[in-house]
């Protein structure tokens, strides 16, 4: 069993962080394929207001447990070498990255399916909330589709 890993990070996920995470896999020479999903905050126009940021909050202890369950279920289902999940808390501006999901495997087929199921499970099952903050300071609460 993999040890529990912390998913939540404060603020946006930087391209540098992603780069370092990729680089750490160069010693794992059994890996042939990596698949990365990144969620980026959109500057959507909603009711005439433009989103400038999303402020993420979560039921953190429950969310970390569910991330752990999702991780274990995915390792059980697919032949993966590695899996990493990071999600932002706090403010993430439009254009910045709020979700980083990274799977690696010997052959590419496992990666395609695993990343898809992981991202869908994260969106559906993890108690994370997003306050979409408009340029004018008003806000609404995001709902996943």
């Amino acid at each position: 069993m993999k040890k529990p890993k912390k998913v939540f990070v404060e603020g946006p996920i930087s391209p540098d962080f992603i780069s370092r995470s990729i680089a750490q896999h160069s010693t794992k020479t059994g890996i042939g394929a990596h698949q990365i999903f990144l969620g980026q905050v959109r500057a959507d126009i909603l009711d005439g207001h433009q989103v400038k940021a999303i402020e993420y909050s979560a039921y953190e202890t429950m969310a970390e447990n569910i991330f752990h369950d999702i991780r274990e279920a995915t390792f059980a289902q697919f032949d993966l070498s590695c899996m990493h999940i990071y999600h932002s808390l706090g403010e993430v501006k439009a254009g910045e990255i709020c979700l980083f999901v990274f799977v690696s495997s010997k052959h590419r087929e496992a990666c395609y399916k695993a990343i898809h199921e992981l991202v869908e499970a994260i969106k559906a099952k993890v108690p994370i909330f997003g306050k979409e903050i408009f340029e004018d300071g008003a806000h609404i609460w995001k709902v996943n589709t």
Partner: protein
Amino acid sequence: MKVTVLLFAQLAELFPSSTLEIEVTSLQEIIENLESKNPDFIGQQYSVAINEEIVQNEIALKDGDIVALLPPFAGG
């Protein structure tokens, strides 16, 4: 019995505090309590987690339970 109620996101905005300690006997009673405190709570969408497990149906509460009301998830 006494339970802790946790409110998140838009539900937390409806009340002065996002954490309530209340004396109740059922989940239904929690909801009525919140509806009476703020009628805007009526009609809100949420799922319920008891001690961090989502529950689909009314289940018996125990003293010390942590009841979380969770608006629609928006991760990612």
